[in-house]
């Protein structure tokens, strides 16, 4: 399998993630979508790293995974706080910035 197959996979995963972020009503679902988008990027990095025979992409991916985990932890904490304050986690109810 060539590089292109990996890139198509990554693009597909990214689009699924984006679709999730835009359409899910549940905030936790949106967070999962964001994870998917980040992992699509990881696939890209690893794929380029493999085919270019350099280790940079691999190392970068490790960092990304760490940051993704932290981000997920903060995101979930935000969701919990949000629920405490607003008694809901549905994104379409959170529109107090409506003009």
């Amino acid at each position, binding site marked *: 399998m060539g590089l292109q197959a990996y890139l198509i996979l990554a693009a597909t995963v990214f689009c699924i993630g984006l679709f999730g*972020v835009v359409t899910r009503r549940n905030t936790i679902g949106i967070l999962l979508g964001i994870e998917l988008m980040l992992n699509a990027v990881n696939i890209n990095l690893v794929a380029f790293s493999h085919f270019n025979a350099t280790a940079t992409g691999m190392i970068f991916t490790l960092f990304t995974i760490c940051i993704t985990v932290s981000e997920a932890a903060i995101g979930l904490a935000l969701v919990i706080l949000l629920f405490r304050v607003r008694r809901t986690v549905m994104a379409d109810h959170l*529109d107090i910035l409506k*003009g």
Partner: protein
Amino acid sequence: MMSDPGGLALIALLLPAVSFLILAIVAPFRRSGRPAAFTSIIFAAGSLAAAIGAWRGHAEGQVTRLAWEWLPSNGVSIATVGVLADGDSTLMLILVALVAFLVQLYSLEYLHDEPPAALGRYYTYHSLFAFSMMGVVLAPNLLQLFISWELVGLCSFLLIGFWYQKPEAARAAVKAFWTTKAGDVGLLIGIILLWRVTGTFDLGELRTMVTSGAVPIEGLSLITFCIYLGAVGKSAQFPLHTWLPDAMEGPTPVSALIHAATMVTAGVYLLHRTVFLFPPDVLMVVAWIGAFTALLAAVLACVQDDIKRVLAYSTVSQLGYMMAAIGAGFSAAGFFHLLTHGLFKALLFLGAGAVIHAVHSNDLSHMGGLAKKMPQTALVFAIGTLSLAGIPFFGGFLSKEEILGATLAGHQTGPFVLLIVVAFLTAFYMFRVVFLAFFAVRATHASPLHVGAGPAEAGHYDQPHRSDSHHTPHDPPAVMMLPLWVLAALSLAVGVYSTVVGRVLQFGPAAEAGAEHVAPAWLTPAAVGVAIAGIALAWLVYQRRTIDAAKLAAAFGPIRTAALHKFWIDDIYEGILAFALLAFSRIVGWLDRYLVDGVLNVVSAWTVSAGDLLRTVQTGRAQDYVYGVAVGVLILILWIRWALV
């Protein structure tokens, strides 16, 4: 330099300016009161000495000019500043300096109750006034004259409103300022128009142009009429005369200096200086309005009960006299009357001030029998009155008769008839004052001098600080009597000399013009006759009481009623102003409400609806924004892919 009339005139002009600057800048000195007053008086005395020196140093027919270039433009100066000392201006300078000095001296006692700061302020204004008025007198060109002219207007405003705590005084000051400004606009327009066609402000150059035939020019009637308008405002001629009686709210010495002897005669002086420009049609207007003003004011003076207002209307009337002489083409006669009138009218006002000072009231009904209590004041007042009435051997005799002769010689029969009537009325109303104030004892007033209870509260007493009460009226102290005696002596001297010798002073341009006018022989007996008739009538009505004053009043019913309402002229002005202002402000209000505000409202409505439209984009939901970002990135990618590469 010391015998040079130009230099001396300049010194006379600058001394009051120095005094003004000292008092204006050194505030603690000004607030010290009497030292400031003495400074101003000493400078005024110096100015008087310089003025007399300038007059004596000036040879017959000699014209001295000191001028400096001013307003340079492309290397050519538009105007000059300086002094012009000739026979007329140095004489007028003496009159101004003399009356200013005497009035300042007199005020020292008259205003002795004023707080020091107010006294200092008073003398500061007086110094500025003396400087400004001398500036008018000595101005060699119309531009400098106009500047000084406005300065005297300012001083008049400040001094009428000297007791600005009194609402009437403040109102009168504003009224005087605006009414004279109405005329001054005309003067300014006239000066500018004249400059546009002749290219000069200079009086000498203008005179040369007239003699060389470069003038008359197109539009001269309009230009000179505009200049005349300035004189109408300043010299209280008919349509704009209403401010002068109200100006009596100021202190009496101020009335004597500014509103009798000097400033109000500035209009006459202006015409006297520029009369060579005036075409006959404008002069005719000047003569008729002058004579009409004289009559109107004389009628008004007959019904006034306020001694100062009688004198004020009398001033308006006499100014009309002077104007009539100028209009008849004999401006020297008007100028001669200006000088004599300056002397005896200042005397009358200062005499009235002495009476007011003693009785604490302006009202004639609070006076009576004062001749016994204040014999000196009564005597000098009588001299002034006889001068004003035009009795031989008194100041106004010859000057008044010259004016009557001038109107005859100028073929102004209408104004002449009016002026003869005025001569009768003048004698009548002035002797009414003399008899009521000094001789007759009013039966209704057993004690006319109950100060505090009656007169002071009754109304117009013009000194707000009355510390002393319950004293018999008596002649004022020497510092007030001295100016009165000086003015009385001068009035008498001029009167006797002019009656015996004929014309006192030969005037340059006047001598040429006046040489031809020989008054008919019946003029002197006629003029003196009507004056004596007026005196006799006043004597019968107010002293002997052979004729009942009430019956006399009833005989003149409608005229008297009209005169008591000042012929409704003030009311008409107020009505017109109120009507015009209201109509104008309605229009402006409509424009503001519907045009200016309308445009703003439409613009703001558009803004609001555009905002309403745009706000729907802002849903407040995070996902919509993410969607927007994704679409935006997509568009960017496509743009880079297809457009740039």
